[in-house]
Structure formats: C-alpha cells, structure tokens
C-alpha cells in the first residue's frame, strides 16, 4: 500500500508542477493535482472510477461556509469603504494619535484582533478593518511591506485569540476535549506576541510628515459622513455577535453570513452618498474570486487525498516521527499543512498529534493552544496563502509576495518558538487552564 499511495502522491506532485510550468494559476495547478491524483487512484479503485466525479464535486463544498463568510464580509467592507467610512476612520485615528505612536500602534493592533477573535477567522479581521488600519499605519510612516507584514501576523493571531479559535475547536471536537480553559493559554501569548509584532515592525518611521501635511494628503471624506454613520454598521455586526453569546437561547441563530449581510444593509442605508450596490457587489466578488477558488480547490484536493490514502500517508509520517525531531519539525509541519489544507490540517495532522501528545503526559489544552499559534503562520504560505494574500491586497503592497513574507521573519520565529515551547512545557503551564475556568 505504501508503494501504491506513493505513486499517487508522485503523480499529484507532477500534475501540480506541470501546471505551474505551463504558467497556470495556483488554483488550476491544485485542481490539476486533485484530478491527476483521482485518476491515478481510480486505477486501483481508490476511489472507484464511478465515484471520482462525486468526490471532486463533494470536496468542492468542504469550505462552503467559509466562502459565504468571506463573500458577505467583503461586500460589507466594500460598502463601508465606498461610503467614505474608511477614510473617515483613518483621518480620525491619525488626527488624535499621530503623536502618540506606541498607543496608536497598540490601538490599531487591538482593532485588528477583535473581529478575528470574535469570529475565529483572521480573514474577517482583514476584510472588515484591514484597509483602514493599513492606511493608518501607512500615515504613521510605516512602509507598505511592513504594513502588510503587521497585518498578516496580527490577523493570524486574531484567529488564534479567544473566545473563538477554529483550530482549537476542531481539535477539541475531534479529541473529545471540552472547548473550555483556552482564555489565558491563548489570550496571554496572543496579546504579548501581537504587541511585540506591532512595535517591532512598526517602530521604524520611514518618512516623517507634519500632522497638517498628512491630513492634507489624505483622501477627502464625503460631506455628511460622521462617526455614527461609520460605527453604526459595525455596532450592528458586533452587537449581533455579542448578543448571540449573551442571549443564545432567545435570539435566532443568524450565522456570520447573515450577520454581515444585515450590517452591510445598515451601512448601505446610512451611507451619505448613493452606492450602486449591484455594481459594487459584482466588482467585489470578482476581486475575491481567486480566494474563493482556492477554498473550493483545497476542498477537492483534501477529498481526493483522503480517498486515495495520500492524506493518511502524510498523517502517518507525522505521527511516526521520533518525539524530539517531531518537536523541532512542528515549526515546519504545522504551517506547511495549513498552507496546503487550511483548517483541514487541524483534523488531518492535529487530531492524531494531540492524542499522541496527550498519551505521553503533555497537557492537551495547552498543547492545542501552542499549536494554534503556529497554524496561522501557514496562512501566509502557498499554495493557499489566504491571510498573506489578503494582507497584501488590503495594504495595496505591489511588490513580490516573497519580499513581503521575508519582512515577517522575526515575529514568525518568535511565535514559532513560543508555540513549540508551549507544547513542550504544556504540563507545567496547566495552571493557565485552571485559572481560565
């Protein structure tokens, strides 16, 4: 069986490489790998040929819920931007905090942390507040490359931050560990690492401008725009999220897509200028299409990898690794798995890994928290690079993707070390779980 699966894996890699060589996009290259692997597998009935179409189509729906969140959140933010709300917020931030640099940086970090912490998706942070925060950071004199780097790291940390951490939830559900006691094991490192990142990357001022000069250079705000017009849609969105936590049994279950849609409607109604909503929605979806295509194809790839046994082989390789080597390799395995499979990585590699770590006496909750710091780093790695690509998009950084990624290396290494140490010393850090409950 090792040989059979090895051949299928080789064909998948070759199909991917061939597609890249033919200069096809990442999405089409991954699709080629999925189809190639599926056809190769069908020769040995894994999966049977009459099931291949079903596996490809079924896999395409794996991340439908995430796709709906992305779509509605991005349209919501596009309306806020089109109404002039983004420019208004950036102007306000600069006006009040331009000369209080540390406070301004930490405030902007917290603004990015909140949406992701509430929804478990760093992408939501970027889609909701990424663009205005990027502009604000830019006016604080930070180069676009570093702005993108800050957004990428902090948005990733926001996804790991409590109360909602999807990786931890998937792992908790899959390992029958209650999703409780994560507040301090996740909250403390996220705040410390976020502060370090934003100060380290944002400390250096590339250019110094006078406040008046900055304000003059900033885009004009439409007449009639005010704080309440900007904040009301956000208030509605966060109000719906918080209300569903506070009164979960008396409020109808709306779900994030509808919550974003309602907030978008409010943003549309309070906009001081008329917005052509259909044109804006069409353009937004066009911009989002590569990201959505990635999510669809990752699902297909994941399904084919499972049906052929490739996924099992990879999982087996991780579990079979000697302990010390495993701890070291976590720095590579976890981000790379996220880059290939996004949330699927938590199930494929995370679940058996946590069972294994638990069985050797480590504390599962703290170990999950430690791994949760490493997974978001993978959202900057190809082929998916979900958060990385969004960070580049919202910060309007135009140069090479790799140059942007290189700018993140110091926080990346620090986060990796903290995450791995949390796993290794999870038993000693068990008090954080107790204090959280």
């Amino acid at each position, binding site marked *: 069986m090792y040989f059979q699966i090895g051949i299928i894996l080789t064909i998948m890699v070759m199909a991917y490489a061939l597609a890249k060589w033919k200069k096809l996009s990442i999405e089409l290259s991954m699709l080629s790998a999925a189809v190639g692997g599926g056809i190769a597998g069908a020769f040995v009935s894994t999966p049977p040929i009459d099931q291949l179409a079903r596996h490809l189509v079924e896999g395409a729906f794996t991340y439908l819920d995430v796709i709906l969140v992305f779509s509605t959140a991005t349209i919501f933010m596009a309306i806020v931007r089109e109404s002039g709300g983004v420019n208004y917020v950036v102007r306000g931030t600069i006006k009040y905090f331009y000369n209080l640099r540390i406070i301004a940086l930490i405030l902007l970090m917290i603004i990015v942390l909140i949406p992701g912490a509430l929804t478990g998706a760093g992408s939501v942070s970027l889609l909701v507040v990424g663009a205005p925060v990027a502009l604000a950071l830019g006016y604080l004199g930070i180069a676009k490359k570093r702005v993108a780097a800050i957004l990428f790291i902090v948005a990733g940390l926001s996804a790991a931050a409590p109360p909602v951490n999807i990786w931890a939830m998937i792992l908790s559900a899959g390992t029958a560990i209650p999703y409780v006691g994560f507040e301090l094991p996740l909250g403390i490192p996220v705040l410390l690492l976020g502060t370090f990142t934003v100060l380290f990357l944002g400390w250096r001022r590339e250019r110094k401008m006078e406040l008046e000069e900055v304000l003059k250079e900033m885009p004009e705000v439409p007449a009639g725009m005010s704080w309440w017009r900007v904040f009301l849609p956000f208030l509605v969105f966060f109000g719906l999220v918080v209300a569903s936590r506070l009164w979960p049994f008396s409020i109808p279950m709306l779900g994030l897509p509808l919550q974003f849609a309602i907030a978008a409607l409010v943003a549309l109604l309070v906009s001081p200028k008329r917005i052509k909503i259909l044109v804006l929605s069409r353009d937004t979806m066009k911009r989002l299409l590569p990201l959505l295509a990635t999510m669809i194809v990752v699902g297909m790839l994941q399904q084919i990898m499972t049906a052929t*046994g490739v996924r099992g082989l990879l999982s087996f390789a991780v579990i079979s690794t000697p302990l010390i080597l495993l701890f070291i390799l976590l720095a590579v395995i976890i981000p790379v798995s996220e880059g290939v499979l996004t949330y699927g990585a938590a199930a494929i590699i995370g679940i058996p890994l946590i069972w294994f770590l638990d069985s050797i006496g480590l504390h599962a909750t703290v170990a999950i928290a430690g791994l949760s710091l490493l997974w978001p780093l993978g959202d900057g790695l190809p082929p998916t690079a979900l958060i990385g690509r969004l960070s580049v998009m919202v910060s309007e950084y135009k140069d090479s993707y790799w140059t942007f990624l290189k700018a993140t290396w110091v926080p990346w290494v620090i986060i990796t070390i903290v995450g791995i140490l949390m796993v290794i010393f999870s038993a000693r850090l068990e008090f954080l779980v107790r204090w959280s409950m």
Partner: protein
Amino acid sequence: MPRILIVKSILLLIIIALMSVAGVQLYKHRHFRMPVVAGPGVTKVEKLSDYTKGLKGTVADTNVFHLEGKEEGGKIFIIANTHSNEPAAILTALIFIENAVVDKGTLIIIPEFNNSAGRNTRPGDGYPLYYEIQTDWGSKKFRMGNRDASPLDQWPDPDVYVHYPDKQLLSYLDVRNTNRTWPGRPDGPLMEQVTYGAMQIMRSEKVDIAVDIHGAETMFPVTNCIVAPEKSIRIATMTSLTVKAREKFDNHVELSPSGFRGLSHREIGDHSDTLPFLLEAPLPFLDQPTGPKTVDLLLDGKDPFLLSLSKKKKLFVPYDETGWPMEKRVGQHCSVILEIIRQFSRKFPDKAIKLRNVPRYADVVKNGVGHYYRDPDKSDKAKVYFN
C-alpha cells in the same frame, strides 16, 4: 470564436457533466430507503415526533421501535446512529429489532437517531456512499452517513455553538451533532429537538437504562470502552469485568467528565432518572493515518499504517493483521448491552429485564453480522419499516 472562449466553454461543459453525475449520486444517497424488518418482539413502532411535535414532517423525525414483554419490568432505551458514520451502532440495533423477544420489561430502540446525518455526506473526508453486509439471503445495503446533521436540514450554523442550558462554548459544527446537543429543548435548533424528543421518551416512559452506541478511532484514548457517569459506573464496571472474564474481550470503563457538556453519557443522567451508558468500539476507518477510505477498511478495519503504529505502541487498542472486523465490534456491543441488562436486573430485581434471541459476542464473530438480518422481500410488508 476566440481560443480562450472555446477552452472556457469546454471546461464549463465538463463541470456541468461532473456536477450532474455527482448530483444524481448524492440525491440518490439522500433519498435511499433502508428497510428495517420488525422482528417477533416488536409490539409497536412510533415516531420521535410523537414525543416532541416540532419534529413532525421534518427529516429529523425517525422511527422508535418498542419491544414490550408480557411481564412488567424495567425499561432499556437503545440509541444508534447518533453519529451515522459509526456503522456498528445501527448494525447492532437492527440485530435487536429483528431478533429480540422480550419476556419481561421493555426495550425501546431508535436505530437511526440522527436521521438527517444518515442522509448527509462528509465533504473533504472521501467516504464511500454505501456499504453492504453479506447475509444468508444476499447482501443488505446500508447508507454511510456523517457525524453531523445535514446543513440542508439545519442551517445556518452559529459562529460558535453555545450549549443549552450550560452555555459552554462548543465548536460551531456541534450544533448539528446529536452527541453535543443533549438534553435539548423543544424550540431549539432541530438537533436539540431530536435529543429533547429522546429525553421525553426517557421521562414519559420512565426508562431505567439508556445505551448510546458509538465507534471511535483506535488512536483515541476513549475507545473500546463503556463511558458512564457516577450513577452508572458500578454497573459499567461489573459489565466490563464480566465480559472480560466470560467472553474474553476488553471493554474498559471511562468516567464521564462532568465539565464536558452536551454528551449523552453526561446530560441524560443529569436531567433524568435514567442510567446512561455510552459504548465505544474501535473504528479504524475514522483514524486519520490510514490508507484509502474504502468499504473494506470500514468493514474489516485492516490497515498497514495502523499496524505499523500499533507496533510503535501509538494505538489505544490491541491491533494486529486481522484488523478490527465488524463482527467483533457488533458482537462486543451485543454482549455489553446484554451484560448491562443482566447487571441492572441483579441490582434491581423488581425492575428486571429479560430478553432472548439476541446473539452474544462469540455468536456474531462466528456467524457474521448479516446472519441475524431478515430478508425484507420475504417478510410481511406490514412489518417492514422505512424512515
């Protein structure tokens, strides 16, 4: 026509063809009708909606089989397919429905507890759509379901599931998982209504014992075991010791954690007088590090990766070249349930339950699971039930 347009048109046609083929297969899977033959012991068949009206007319409604003895006694409630991707549960429940004769007390069985999950697939996990069990009269086809109810039946999901009534935060997916939605409520999401219906059965029928049948990964510590809360732990322990001594298979006892909410083995005991037990048999198919997810792996549980990991002592159950065949898993469930009944009857003689015609572990291993199923084509049509 420009070349790019031709390429796009061809790709579109291929996609339409793929979606049509897959769509028909998935439609058939969702609407597949699996017959259950009511055996000689079945005295009435109700619907879960008879206990909570909100389920009427929904996919979540499901058959409830009653096997009542002539003599009054205790009552046991068996729940299968709480997770519809753990097939030993429904296979065990059908053995009881199609064979058991109750002399004293009552046996209530729901073979397809999460009926919506039974009609769902698991995107990303590459499951087969069906599996077949060989019987003495041919093969009996079963639908492979999912752990969670279908979003077609319960949607949208919240961003995080807040458990009722404890407000513990659980994964958003767990809102569709009927082993996280206990004890449920009559006006909650559909799966909370399903568990509420089951709670109503236990309260209104004054059920003494509830058994929720599951399967779990070999790499999961809580496998091959009986999970029980404090109030059931003595009977669980006696059961475990007895099957080990008499029938030579391991089935250890795990204490139900009080801080983990929504599970049957915790909430049933906390919200009713019933003694809950959750049975786990090893299910290698669910393990992550396995070869292809085939029907063979599902039924015989043989996998070279797991064998290798077993040699490295990374599994929580004994594992060799014979894998974990379905006969062993179903046989264990049968024997453990019979032993729980026996231990309960010894402890509470005034509420004793007596039943016969249900095979034990050695019988199922020897004869195969399918040996105990009746041919629906040759049975009285009035006794063949579909969900």
